[in-house]
């Protein structure tokens, strides 16, 4: 191989790869939204200490914390079709690989975001709820007017870094050969026999978007302020 890295190859790869950027973004976004919905329930159960479900959620969280992303992804990818066929007698082997990736991300992020939300809700001192009750607010009013606004403030930075992590972890769909940004980089590399240029393009794209997400959350964090000082 005469030239290892060429700028021509680098620039030629950009339009080919950017076509697939929406796919990656969609995977991230869908996973984030569904995982947040699950996380709300997990956090709710853990904050209210619902008898049996609390234990279930604890186990779920512990298992998800103990498994690497790759292992979860590959387990879902290989095990889910088998399980679904056994229980529902439906063949999902031919589904798009990205569906399995999304399911794996949801499973993992549901636990992590759930924990962030729980920590945020519990960070509001109990005396505040008690004060709200003492002036005659109902439970709903207390939660939505007193607890929620304060816990959102706590949750924003952690939620942002979690989102960046989730976005970066979408690269491991490489392991199951799904067709998104990095899968496309791999095929472009295979076609041109130059792997490094497409990979570098992907790296640049990821850096830019990660930094943008970080900036967005920093901005949100600075915007989201209340009259009450934290001193």
């Amino acid at each position, binding site marked *: 191989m005469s030239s290892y890295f060429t700028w021509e190859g680098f620039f030629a790869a950009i339009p080919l790869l950017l076509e697939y950027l929406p796919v990656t973004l969609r995977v991230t976004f869908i996973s984030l939204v569904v995982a947040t919905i699950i996380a709300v329930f997990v956090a709710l159960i853990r904050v209210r200490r619902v008898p049996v479900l609390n234990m279930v959620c604890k186990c779920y969280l512990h298992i998800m914390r103990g*498994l*690497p992303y*790759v292992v979860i992804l*590959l*387990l879902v990818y290989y095990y889910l079709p088998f399980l679904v066929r056994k229980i529902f007698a439906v063949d999902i082997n031919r589904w798009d690989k990205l569906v399995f990736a999304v399911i794996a991300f949801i499973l993992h992020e549901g636990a992590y975001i759930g924990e962030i939300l729980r920590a945020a809700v519990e960070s509001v001192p109990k005396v505040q709820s008690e004060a709200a009750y003492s002036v005659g607010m109902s439970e709903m009013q207390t939660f939505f007017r007193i607890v929620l606004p304060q816990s959102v403030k706590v949750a924003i930075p952690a939620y942002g870094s979690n989102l*960046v992590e989730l976005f970066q972890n979408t690269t491991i769909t490489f392991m199951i050969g799904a067709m998104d940004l990095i899968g496309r980089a791999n095929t472009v590399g295979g076609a041109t026999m130059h792997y490094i240029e497409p990979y570098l393009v992907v790296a640049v794209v990821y*850096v830019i978007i990660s930094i943008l997400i970080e900036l967005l959350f920093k901005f949100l964090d600075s915007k989201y302020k209340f009259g009450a000082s934290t001193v």
Partner: protein
Amino acid sequence: MEFDVQSLKDCFFSGIQYLGVTVKISLVSIIFGTILALIVALVRFYKVPVLSQLFALFVTVYRGIPIMLIILIGHLMYVMHFDTVVKALHLSVKIKDVDIVLLGYIVMTVGVIPSISETFRGALKSIDKTQYEACYSIGLTTTQSLRRVILPQMFPVAFPSYINNILGVIKGVPLLSSVGIMEVMQGSLLPCSVSYSYLEGYAAAALIYFMLITLILNVAKYIEKNLNRYRVIRKNTK
């Protein structure tokens, strides 16, 4: 396709044999990564002129690159440039003589620096400014005040997120299998290549990782309990 317990057992024991590799890569990268990250964090904290900006750029950019890409690009560079670099150093090793695990050490070590250095920097910032001033007022040099006052207080603060970083490293190791490093996940898949039933292999890998991380979390909980004794804890005013 049925779930075979015997096969799961085979996979489990096959995977356990490679636990050493995973642990070794994690340990090496955590130890070297921590030392380097501490240097990066201190340089950025004390705002050493040129270096601090350089490190800031490195951390910002490097944090934006997913570990999977770092591994893939690192692998390509390793394969292409290893011989050139070695020749420049006048060593007589060829790439085929060197275990690919070396790449794992390098990639993971560099990969953990940004996250750990951010953890340390956050912890350094959390220490009261009065502590530094107090150190200077009784005539301690910077090194002395760091070693005797600041660092012992910094570690307990940094510890929970440091443990998270360590877990991140351990969970990043199976990604190395994509460049052909044998670790726990690949190891537990070995018996599967006979039967073509990979489910048991992944289940076994999940089991091993789960046990390993539970162990680390429990040890961490125990250490955390005993860590806070050096720390000056102000009275909590809610």
